[in-house]
């Protein structure tokens, strides 16, 4: 099966879901989500059965990478994320219905839910396309598909001012970064006369590179992509948007969008890194952003009391570690077999996906029961629902980078790269950041375990949906497996 069938399947699933929503009378529209989940599971299975084309003569392959395991890996990330997001969304549907149900009588009480489930499918397709895009045009359109889908999803709760505010903020800043991206693309195109990444690479690694112009183009592109992945100081949207968006969408943003941003960043930075005249400055720029991101993300998370904002800053912090890995790209002259930054980033993102989604799953489950997303809402959770507390603590341990969890290896590899490249300053900042991480991730553990719940409140166990429970168990298992043997995950890359 050709690889691009995957995107086609996912898009078709989305369309099918829309059609079912429109034309099939359903008691409970959550079954639409099940279609999507089932389809995504199948698609994920198919991921392992794809074939690369025999010949790449057709112009199609100008836009779509061939034989690229990394792309498949990121497609997998996109599919998994969407799957979990759908599970969360179906748990979360009560709140969606609350905020969007139509006022008129006779309408289906859950109208509006179908689109809420279908939009992630299109976003997923966009993310998958981004993973494979190797042409400025396909990068651009895929990126924008995702971005526009996210504008809608973030602002989806149209009766909720927070959601709309988040939508507006994301819209303005997203459009701004699109502007810079386009401007950067234009310059890149102007400097290299091409839009195909391979050709751009050839052009940039040639002799007569226009250094200033290329750097100008690069900085504009970097700005836009740093925005997507949440690198400081282009991260400002993240806390507000994460907080305002519906929780499943926050999870989606935090994992899917970041992963896609990184694959694009990796692809776009690669030609620049292969140019010996540019590479020094490029690394410098990435280093600076990485340092800022590490500091801002980790330190700002310390005083947070809102769990979603905390996770938002944590997402910034992890972007910092990922950028740190990128900043430690070995120069061409360095011999020896290293784990390439690309692989490290890929692994890190995989780990990040597992632990962040687990956290969001627990959070969604709790949020449905308890209004508010402050840390205080988690008081006494350990007594109330030990399983949820356990899942959360695994997730937090992994995010904090405690060994035997996947998150540890992520940081390990990053530090290893920094040591190899002797980026001592970056390493120090990374250490400070990781140290701060211990504090803010354990804050949630402290809230769950160390503080007693007000006995006046409801202290019965929080119900956990079957699907959510299965998803949590699978994620926990994967986090631990990834923490024991990261090669299993990195092996997917080759």
């Amino acid at each position: 099966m050709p690889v691009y069938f995957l995107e086609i399947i996912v898009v078709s699933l989305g369309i099918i879901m829309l059609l079912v929503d429109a034309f099939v009378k359903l008691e409970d529209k959550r079954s639409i989500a099940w279609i999507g989940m089932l389809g995504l599971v199948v698609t994920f299975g198919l991921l392992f059965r794809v074939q690369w084309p025999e010949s790449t003569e057709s112009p199609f392959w100008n836009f779509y990478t061939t034989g690229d395991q990394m792309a498949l890996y990121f497609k997998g990330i996109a599919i998994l994320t969407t799957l979990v997001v759908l599970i969360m969304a179906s748990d979360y549907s009560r709140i969606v219905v609350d905020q969007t149900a139509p006022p008129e009588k006779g309408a289906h009480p859950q109208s509006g839910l179908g689109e809420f489930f279908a939009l992630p499918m299109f976003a997923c397709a966009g993310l998958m396309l981004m993973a494979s895009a190797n042409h400025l045009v396909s990068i651009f359109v895929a990126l924008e598909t995702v971005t526009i889908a996210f504008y809608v999803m973030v602002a989806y709760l149209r009766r909720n001012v927070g959601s709309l505010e988040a939508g507006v903020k994301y819209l303005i800043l997203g459009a701004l970064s699109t502007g810079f991206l386009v401007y950067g693309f234009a310059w890149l195109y102007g400097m290299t006369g091409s839009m195909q990444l391979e050709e751009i690479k050839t052009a940039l690694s040639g002799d007569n590179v226009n250094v200033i112009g290329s750097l100008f183009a690069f900085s504009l592109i970097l700005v836009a992509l740093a925005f997507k992945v949440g690198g400081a100081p282009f991260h400002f949207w993240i806390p507000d948007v994460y907080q305002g968006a519906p929780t499943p969408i926050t999870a989606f943003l935090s994992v899917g969008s970041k992963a896609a941003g990184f694959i694009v960043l990796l692809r776009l930075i690669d030609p620049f890194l292969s140019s010996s005249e540019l590479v020094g400055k490029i690394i410098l720029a990435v280093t600076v952003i990485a340092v800022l991101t590490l500091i801002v993300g980790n330190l700002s998370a310390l005083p947070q009391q809102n769990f979603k904002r905390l996770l938002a800053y944590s997402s910034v912090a992890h972007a910092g570690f990922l950028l740190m890995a990128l900043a430690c790209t070995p120069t061409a002259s360095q011999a020896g077999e290293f784990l390439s930054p690309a692989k490290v980033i890929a692994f890190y993102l995989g780990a990040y996906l597992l632990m962040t989604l687990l956290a969001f799953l627990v959070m969604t489950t709790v949020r449905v029961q308890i209004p508010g997303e402050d840390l205080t809402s988690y008081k006494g959770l350990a007594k109330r629902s030990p399983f949820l507390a356990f899942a959360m603590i695994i997730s937090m341990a992994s995010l904090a980078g405690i060994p035997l969890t996947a998150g540890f290896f992520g940081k390990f590899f990053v530090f290893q790269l920094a040591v190899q490249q002797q980026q001592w300053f970056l390493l120090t900042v990374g250490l400070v950041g990781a140290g701060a991480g211990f504090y803010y991730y354990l804050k949630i553990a402290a809230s769950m375990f160390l503080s007693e719940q007000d006995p006046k409140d409801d202290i019965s166990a929080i119900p956990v949906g079957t699907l959510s429970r299965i998803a949590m168990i699978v994620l926990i298992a994967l986090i631990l497996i990834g923490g024991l043997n990261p090669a299993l995950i990195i092996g997917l890359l080759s």
Partner: protein
Amino acid sequence: MTFLFYIFAALALVGGIGVVVNRNPVSAAFAMIVSFLGLAALFIQLDAYLVGVLQILVYAGAIMVLFIFIIMLLDVRVEENRRFPFFGALCTGGVAAAFAALLLVVLNRSEVGAATLPALAATEGPGSSDVHRIGELLFSQYWFPIQVVGILLLVATIGVVVLSKKELK
């Protein structure tokens, strides 16, 4: 030729400034249309006829109409902040000026733009117009992005529909 360039460039820039400084949203929108017209003229000066026409049709025509429509619909008035935001304007102007200055530096040092407008090779016959060539590119080589844009538009449509549903009174 150069003379025309200056006129159109001035049109575009003045239009742009008009968007920024006009307190009245409708005036701002009209200033934007002016700017787009200037841009379109510059496109045409660069022998990009189709693009120039698209600029007028899509941007000046469709998008700006949409803007004006929304402005009217929401009955947005002149910005209510009466005091001139001096500090904000200063910072803003600073950022914009710095950006332009940096651009100058880049242009100066990169020497990329020193090239004068090269003459086009003469072409003849059908299929030689830029509409032709772009169309051919779009629907042969670029069929794939086109499909993706289809998805994008679908998403946008759904989004607009969902977001604009009737609201509780």
